[in-house]
């Protein structure tokens, strides 16, 4: 009898609980006040290198839907260009951007040093996947809002699943000679970090051996997608998000989560000290960590940084796979070093 009554309780309560959990907006404390203040600022400009322009557009649209009355303008470029623009703005004394999102973690050390950021501790940081929390700035100058993976990708129409490389060192196998595609650390923050990690794990010999396979070197990490689709290359060190987006369209691509670890890219976002729309910027940062935003991101095949949002089928959640990543100091110091080494080894 007690069991039955408790079952009934659960039978009644569960749907209610379910309804409660499915409550629309993920609100945070003080959201309304911040929203009012932000509305007065009317619009916000965001420099981002975190994802492609469709995703950036979708993120912005989502923000405008969630917070009507604030226009969201984005300028999507590669990390280098974003930094260059910001630097020029600052030098000219112009305040254009309010929020800055770069994939190159070493940018943030410099930004902090130059005093261009303002601190803000987001309320939504509670929703951030725990694994990312160490990458937030202790002084709250920047917070991780995007993540990506560099892993092994291949074209399924020329490579059978069983023959595909399983770990990073498999790319050195002579059978992939003339068929490997990578990016260039001078153009891409992602590639730079990957190179630093490979050096950390295997020493620079890794690249000397890779050169024997005469890899096809592009610019951005996304060039690997083009190379695979063109069948110019069969395997690549590529990004999870864009490869999956391309695969969703029907292109014959597949991912391999390397046994020795996929490189985890954690991309921070910071609010600029001279932001023309500081309140909107804060609201935006909260939004980047929110469920709505991350739902939009996973639809675009980007990684979610929010605990409660799971990836779409075909991709595995970061929590489930082995990831490796160099530390900030290693990235900061390492990227300029590996750029030179890369040029010496590959001649370009």
């Amino acid at each position: 009898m007690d069991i039955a009554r408790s079952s009934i309780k659960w039978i009644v309560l569960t749907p209610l609980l379910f309804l409660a959990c499915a409550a629309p907006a993920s609100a945070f404390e003080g959201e309304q006040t911040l929203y009012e203040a932000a509305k007065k600022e009317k619009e916000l400009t965001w420099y981002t290198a975190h994802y492609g322009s469709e995703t950036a557009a979708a993120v912005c649209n989502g923000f405008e839907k969630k917070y009507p009355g604030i226009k969201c303008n984005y300028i999507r470029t590669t990390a280098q260009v974003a930094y260059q623009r910001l630097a020029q703005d600052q030098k000219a004394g112009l305040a254009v951007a309010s929020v800055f999102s770069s994939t190159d973690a070493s940018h943030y050390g410099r930004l902090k040093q130059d005093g261009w950021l303002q601190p803000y501790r987001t309320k939504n940081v509670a929703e951030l996947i725990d694994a990312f929390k160490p990458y937030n700035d202790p002084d709250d100058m920047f917070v991780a809002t995007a993540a990506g993976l560099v892993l092994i990708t291949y074209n399924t129409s020329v490579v059978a699943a069983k023959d595909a490389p399983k770990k990073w060192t498999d790319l050195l196998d002579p059978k992939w000679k003339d068929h490997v595609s990578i990016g260039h650390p001078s153009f891409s923050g992602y590639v730079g970090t990957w190179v630093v990690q490979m050096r950390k794990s295997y020493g620079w010999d890794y690249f000397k051996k890779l050169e024997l396979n005469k890899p096809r070197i592009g610019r951005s990490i996304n060039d690997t997608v083009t190379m695979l689709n063109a069948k110019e290359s069969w395997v690549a060190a590529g990004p999870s998000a864009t490869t999956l987006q391309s695969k969703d369209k029907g292109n014959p691509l597949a991912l391999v989560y390397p046994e020795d670890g996929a490189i985890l890219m954690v991309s921070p976002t910071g609010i600029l000290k001279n932001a023309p729309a500081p309140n909107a910027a804060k609201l935006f940062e909260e939004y980047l960590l929110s469920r709505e935003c991350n739902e939009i991101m996973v639809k675009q095949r980007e990684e979610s940084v929010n605990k409660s949002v799971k990836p779409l089928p075909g991709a595995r959640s970061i929590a489930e796979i082995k990831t490796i990543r160099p530390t900030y100091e290693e990235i900061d110091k390492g990227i300029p070093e590996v750029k030179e080494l890369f040029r010496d080894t590959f001649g370009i």
Partner: protein
Amino acid sequence: MRWRHLDKSVFLWLLLVAALLLLVINPLARLVWSSFQHGATGAFTLDNYVAAYGRWRYVEALVNSVVLGLAVAAVCVVFGVPLAWAVSRTDMPGKGLVWAAILGTFIMPSYLGAVAWILLAGPNAGWLNRAYMGLTGAAAGPFNIYTKAGLVLVIACYSFPYMFVFTRSALDLISSEMEEAATTLGAGVLRTTLRVTLPLTLPAMMAAFIVAFLEAIALFGVPALIALPGRIQLMTTTLWQFFEFPPRVQVAAAYAMPLLGITALLFWLQQRLIARKGYVALTGKGGERRMVKLGSWRWVMLAYCLFVTSLSFFLPMVVVLQAAFAKAWGRGFSLDNLTLANLKFVVVDQPITRAATLHTFVYGGASAALALGLALAIAYIVHRRLVPFGNALSYVAMAPFVIPGIVLAIGFYAAYTSPPLVLYGTAWILILAFTTRFLPIAYANSNAALRAINPELEDAVRILGGGRLLALRRVVGPLLKRGLAGAFLLVFIPATRELSSAIFLYTTGTQVLSVLLFDKSDEGNFEYLSAIGLILVIGTVALVLAGFRLVGRDFMLKRTAA
């Protein structure tokens, strides 16, 4: 000096000269200045030059770029001159088709063509290679786009239209009597063409050679796509390195300086070679232009024309079309891979495309009009020697072209983001940057066009009481109309696909299609890239055709049977 003796239009000339100097000298001066500045302290130093040329790699890049430029210009001659001759002076059939294909080539952004060529001639899976392997049973195809030869080919494909247009304009003005004189002396068609007709177009060809050279060494998009994977060091990709974080703008400026020296050298060479010969071929009377009969050779010529335009336009367009209408371009041709979704997304779902399209054409049109107006005025001032140091003005007008778009953009940025003239964030900084960037083309063309007009036509106006301005308005302007329409297009079209300067100067309110396209190539999203590229090409073609309608009667055509 007596007041009534003063030609009051001299104030206008001085104003125009001032505008030229402001537009060109200001950013350049900033650049030169910063090449001597220490990055942190601003003190005078030569360290930047040491850093820029201290490593062999950087010097090698410069050498590669110069060799690339010369090779590209040479190939442009091989592509452009025969086509210009065929279209202008022979009875080859299918001229309309060839002309349309060349126009299409000119409109197509070179980086779009480069991506298409990777698909066509990639060493492993290029369509051409696979076709070859299929036909001959060979193990591998002979084409490899990731080589110096491939790079030269792709760049030349998109630079030869300049050679075509300049040479054709010059050829159109030559009276057939020149050729007939040679024929009566026993020279055949080939000898006449090589010894009489083509040498008369030498100034035009040289101008086009220089334009092709400078375009080749200043390109960023194509080298990034092909030279990088081909392991070929080039100046623009090296410059990019200097802008890497932390950026060393001063070293970049120092690195770019030798290009100015190269332009000067090219100019000096051009002047030396053509200075002593008279090239005024158009007077108030003039002879006819009759088509040379080629007999069965006309089919050979047509085949060659179609071959060249296939390389530059037809083949890449097939690739672009396939991708624009493909769900997944990696899947290749198949009926179930067709979709209109890409176009729909780009046109309907993404408002930024519409805004970017509008901006692209408006900025392109504005900068073309400005560049042409200024160029014509400066060319006039130089030709008629209205101010002293006219040759220096020529040099100033041509200087911007040698500065890579990126570097010019930085210079512009530096010049116009602080008071008194703050243009950053507005459309004007883009328009003025494009104007400056393409002023050299407008100038070279204006120069050639003006050179061909007999100064006596203006003298006749003046002696009858009209001032110089009236002469320009009533006589020179109308006579130049067709040539000017051509020159307008020569600025408008590159402005619509201009990337390297736009990428630094745009903001959310002033997005343009080239940046959108480039972003897509960065993102590996070739389907959308092709869809946007298709819109750009079709939109520009439509505007160009409309423009042709507006240009009236061609006064340069000579006597008919009467």
